[in-house]
Structure formats: C-alpha cells, structure tokens
C-alpha cells in the first residue's frame, strides 16, 4: 500500500465524443490526475448496467460513464438510453448502501478537451473525498 490512498476509478466512454474529447485534452496537454482508467466502447448505449455493478463488485471506488451530448449521439439516441439506465444504477447503488456519487454520467463532446479534464478532476476529487469503497472491506 502506498502512503497516500489513491482511488480506483473506471471510465467507460464512447468512441465518437468523449474518447475523442479525451484525446483532444491530450493534444492540448491539459493536465489532470492519473487516477482513472478508460475503456472504449462505440456508444454509451452499449454499457450494460451489469458492467458497472461488476466494477463495483471488483472493488472500484468510482465509475464514470461519458458520452455525447443529447442530440449529438453518433447512433442517434444511444446516450439517452444510457442516461435512462443511470437512474436504475443509482437507485440500486443506494439500496446496497453505496453513495450514488460514486457513479457519474457526463456528456463531453469531441471538441471539449478542457471539459474532459475538468470532469476527471472533479470525479477524482469527489471519489477521493468519499474514500475507499465500503464493498472492498466487505469482500475481504
């Protein structure tokens, strides 16, 4: 264990908007903390709520879902469907005693590199303040 606790945060982000936005933040060298690991899917609509549950079960301290702005989805409406699932996920998290701020959905377009950096900063800050996921201790 390191002397300073660092959260484990999973990001699942869409290829067309948020992944491109994250790439743009790189191109512009906008610095943000390295406490996030991104998995790319074609659309946030692909994200099965069970993926998120699996991440928390595996000990994730936070999960970030990021897609296109409403109306900008490359597949017309996948982000709407993902957003609707967020309500379900948040209520399930609350019911099992997790703070629902550990899961967040944001909308970052391909031209919003600075916004992506801001989102990561904020998610890392929020999850760090919340501390380690209680599920981790529950597991072992």
């Amino acid at each position, binding site marked *: 264990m390191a002397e300073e606790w660092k959260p*484990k945060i999973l990001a699942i982000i869409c290829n067309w908007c948020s992944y*491109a936005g994250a790439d743009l933040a790189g191109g512009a*060298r906008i610095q943000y903390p390295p406490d996030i690991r991104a*998995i*790319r899917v074609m659309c946030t*609509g692909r994200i099965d709520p069970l993926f998120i549950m699996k991440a928390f079960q595996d000990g994730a301290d936070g999960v970030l879902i990021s897609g296109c702005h409403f109306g900008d989805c490359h597949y017309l409406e996948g982000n709407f469907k993902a957003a609707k699932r967020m309500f379900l996920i948040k209520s399930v998290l609350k019911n099992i005693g997790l703070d629902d701020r550990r899961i967040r959905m944001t909308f970052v377009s391909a031209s919003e590199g600075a916004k992506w950096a801001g989102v990561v900063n904020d998610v890392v800050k929020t999850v760090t303040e919340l501390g380690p996921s209680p599920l981790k201790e529950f597991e072992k």
Partner: protein
Amino acid sequence: MAEKKEARIGVFICHCGTNIAGSIDIKALQEYAKTLPNVVVADEYQYMCSTPGQGKIVDAIAESKLTGVVVAACSPRLHEPTFRMASKVGGLNPFRFEMANIREQNSWVHMHDREGATAKAKDSVRIAVAKASLLEDLFPKSVPVEKAALVVGAGVAGIQASLDLANAGIPTYLIEKSPTIGGRMSQLDKTFPTLDCSQCILTPKMVDVGRNENIILKTYTEVEKVEGYIGNFDITLRKKARGVLTPDEAAERGYVGGGCNGCGDCAGVCPVIKGNEFEFAMAPRKAIYIYHPQVVPNIYTVDFESCIKCGLCVDICGDKKAIDLEMEDTFETVKVGTAILATGYDLFPIEKKAEWGYNRYENVITGLEFERLICASGPTGGHLVRPSDGQTPMKVGFVLCAGSRDNTGVGKPYCSRFCCMYSLKHAHQIHEKIPGARVYLFYMDIRSFGKMYEEFYYRIQDEGAKFIRGRVSNILEDATTKNLHVFTEDTLLQRPINLELDLVVLASAVQPVAEEDTIRKLFGVSKSQDGWMLEAHPKLNPCGTTTAGVFLAGVCQGPKDIPDTVAQAEGAASAASIPIHTGKVELEPYFAQCMDEKCAGCGMCVNLCPYGALALVEKNGRKVMEVTEAKCKGCGTCGGFCPGGAIHMQHFTTPQIVAQIDAFLLGGEQ
C-alpha cells in the same frame, strides 16, 4: 468463436520519441508486460508506426505465433488502422489487434507525474492484453455503393463540388434552401486581391450547374431525413411549396409549353411589397419574386407568408399556367452513395455589440450591405450612398474584428478570416469610385496571409487609407446630420481619437447558418467548440467527418475565403467520389449477433434499435431475434440491455468488456 486456441499476445510499446518516453518508464512497462498472462513477446521501439516499428510486429506474429497484438502508443483514433494493417501483413486477422492509449490519455496529460503515468500505463496495457486475449477473427462486410452523390448548399463550395462530381461522371443532387443558387458569393461585388468581379467568375459556374446533365438541381428544397450508411444513404427531401411550376413540372400536369419562363409579368402586377432579402431589404421585391435577374434557375417563387392570394399573378400568367397558389410541400427520397455538406455562413447579429449602434444608427452598415451598395447590380446601381440621406460619403470608417476575436462573451472568439481582406478591398473601391474620399480602418491586426494578400495590403496603404490600431469603444450619432462620432484609442500613438465620419462599415463576424445544427445532426456530424462542423482530423482529414461517406466543404467547417473554400470543395468532391468510383466500401464488422440458445424472444432489443435492424423471427418453433447486418451500425445499445445476455456485440463482446474491467480492478497489484 469455434476454435479455442490458447492466446499468445505480443505487446509493442512505442516511445513516440520523447512524447511517451518522456513521461513513462518504457523499460519498466516492458518488463511488466512480460509478466502478464498470455503475453509471449514484449518489445519496444522509438516509433512503432514507422517501417521498422511495424516490421517488428509483422516478424513477431510469425516467429512467436501470436494470436493477438497489443500496441501501447497513441490513440486508436489515430493509428488503429495503421497497426491493423501491420497485423494483417503479418498474417493475423486485423481485428485481433488492440491498442493501449498511453499518449493522448496518459503521457500528454500526466507530463509531470512519471510514477502515476507509468502505473496508469501498466494498467492500460494489462486491460488491452485482457481484451486482446479474447479477440476473434472478424471480416468486414463489403457493400455496393450507389452511383450518386448529394451536395447540400449551393454556394460557391456546393457549386464547385457538384461540378467536379458531375464532371467525374457521378449523378449529383444539388440541394439549396433558397430559390436560387449562388450563395454568399453572388452577393459580393469584387473579390480580393485580384478585384475580379464576383458575378463574372461565379455566374458562368451557375449556368454550368443548370446545364450539366449529371447535376439534378433542387432549389427551395431542404433535407428532411437521412437514413442508411456510406454507399447507401436514403435522403428524404422536402421540396418547399414554391407556388410556381417549372416548364417540366407544368408538362407533368399536362400544360405542355407552360410553366415559368421568368418573364416577370406576375411580379409586375403583384400588389404586395416586401424587402428583398438578397439586398438586405435595401431594395423592394413583390410577394412573387426573384432575388435578382441572374438567378439560376430563372423561376419565380411565391412568398406564401406575404401573399394575399388576390390571384392577379395567376390571371396575367394566363395560358402558361405557371402559378399555383394552392401548392403544398412535397417529399421525395433519393438514394446516394456519399454526401457533401456545404451550408455556409450567416453574419453574426452585430447589433448585439450595442456600442456600435447597428440598427440604431442609419449610417452604420455591415460589410455585406456595403457589397450590395457598391455593386453595379445592387439597389443603388453601384453608387455608394449614405442610407440616411442618399449623399455620397466622403469620410468612411471600417471597424475590423467586429464581433470576431471577441472574448467578452458577446461576440465570437475566433478570427473570421476574410474580414480584413474585404475591408481592404472596400477601402480600395472607395478610393476608386469617390475621388477625395478619406478612409479609416480601425484594426487590431491586419491578417493578410494569402497569396498576394500582403502585397494588396501595401497597395491600399499607398492609396492613402488611414490605419488606426485600436478597437472602437463607442459610436455616437449626431441627431441632425446623422454623422457618426467614432471613439477609439490609437494604441500606436497612445492617443485617444474622436473622428466624425459619414459612414461606418462593420466587418461583422460570421457564424454558422441557423439550420446548421439540424443538418449536422441529420448526418451525424459533430460540431467544434466554436459551433462550426467538425472535420475528422484538422490536418490529415479536413474534408471528412466522423460519419463515413459524409464530407464538408466551405465555411460550414470554419471561416475561409473563396480560394480556400473552392479548394476544400474540390477536395471534398474528390473524397466523395472515391467510394463511388471504387464501387464498394467495407463496413467495420461491429455487428450485433443473436445467440439463439440464450435468446428468450422478449423483443426488448427490437424496440431499442434506432435503425430497425432487429426483428423477431420464428426459428425451430420459437421466437428469436435476428439482425439485418446491413442495417446494424454496431452501437451495441441492444447488447447493453439484453436481459439474457444473448447479444454478441462483435469486437465489444460482454466477455471482452468484463475481462477489461476485471483486468483493471482485479489483475494488478492489490
């Protein structure tokens, strides 16, 4: 899915010079990669994308009998195609390649945290290896391409693109929302720096459009709906009710020899008078109108919002039976292989910069209004006059960067790129037409960056124009003379300035047309932060978009002058013609597949699919879902919801994604 060979993964780490190696410990990453499950080779190189770098991948695939390749380098959005090709050359199915992004999303954003960046890179590689271990052979689907193209917007960009496509033998639908083609360029008088008359170089092209057999011109028409994908777009067009029949349309109704011949008798008798939008309401038009005598096509249009349906025009049109005041919008669907968007620009509403008094003071006008006032075919026959009293202005000021390069939140932060040059041209035109007139240009910087532009700038200086470096803080009007007092600071002389001028021209910023958002969403094109349509890559793919088969031309992608617009239009036309001439395109095989044994036939997915690609069918006595691959675009929305996990999203399968999650959270040092 059938064969279950043991996974053998090769990991290749790119230094990207010092782009990656500067922030990430490559040696440590390489040693770490060697310890990961299934990894049989872990190599590194200065530039993996170079010939020797790709050679390492090709050789390793054969030597180590790899079943999967992971390259840890830049973004897959940049070099995934490159390394897929290298994998293919090595004899591996290209979809057995996975990329770990350790540049854009790591070394470049954690430049001063070597430890954190290296730890993140290790995780990224571990996640990528987990996915690569489960990747399958996939085969792109080849689909035929419809031999036709669509161009939206018939300004100079759309005209040039259509002519190029048509001359390459491709039937091209050219769609224009207004009743005539020509766009903004047809409103200009002269063009910088050559001082060609805009009409003289544009109207021949407009006539060519009308004559070209391969161009199907549809004016007063808008795009209503877009379906399909590259090679096979079904575009529904709304033909707005024009109230006037073309000779062809008249013939269809059985009035052979009828239809509008552009005689204008109808406008002669029409009692309704409106402002002509083409002249910025500085000249009148009737409720049945053409914008100007050179319109293409030369067909009148009824403005149904103003028409009182008195029927005088119908009577005078007589036997030609060209006018139908009961006409309604009609729809038609055209099938095209590729599309070019060339929707152009509008002026920023400069009245929002209230300190300059546009709309409040009669003698404050925009650059485009100046174009009409100085144009021989304009409302004043080319005599520049003050709107307030019709007098010739002897002292004229130009406010540059009017609403451009404006970080106050009111205007636009970007440079509109052609206002400096057209203001210089305006200065020249005043010197030419009004002997003794004095011209003042209030500027921040003069941006004369094109071929022969700087030389033109020197010429205008020599002609006697006064350049004052300073933003105009305020303009006040003298209530009796309607003269304008312009306040600024000459920042070079560090002196406040108060000049009394006869006329002030605002070089307004430009912004996307009002319809741009609707159109780009129909075609699935993103927008940049500044509101213009987003190109696929600013340097290497400036005409393409993230939607395959949709291209951009002209100002809709960002402000540009006529030479740049025409050049981009030719580029877009060339890019749009490639799939059509190739005759087929390969679609990425990210299709959904139904695993029949798991499918309960509930049909949830059928309603979720935005493309109608899924349907329930009878198989072996029970209902299961079936995918129409040609319609499936691979978003995975069905796979994200299937309660039974019965949908196999190729290349983004549930086992692959779960393996990635597990690799991140369970695979590393706990």
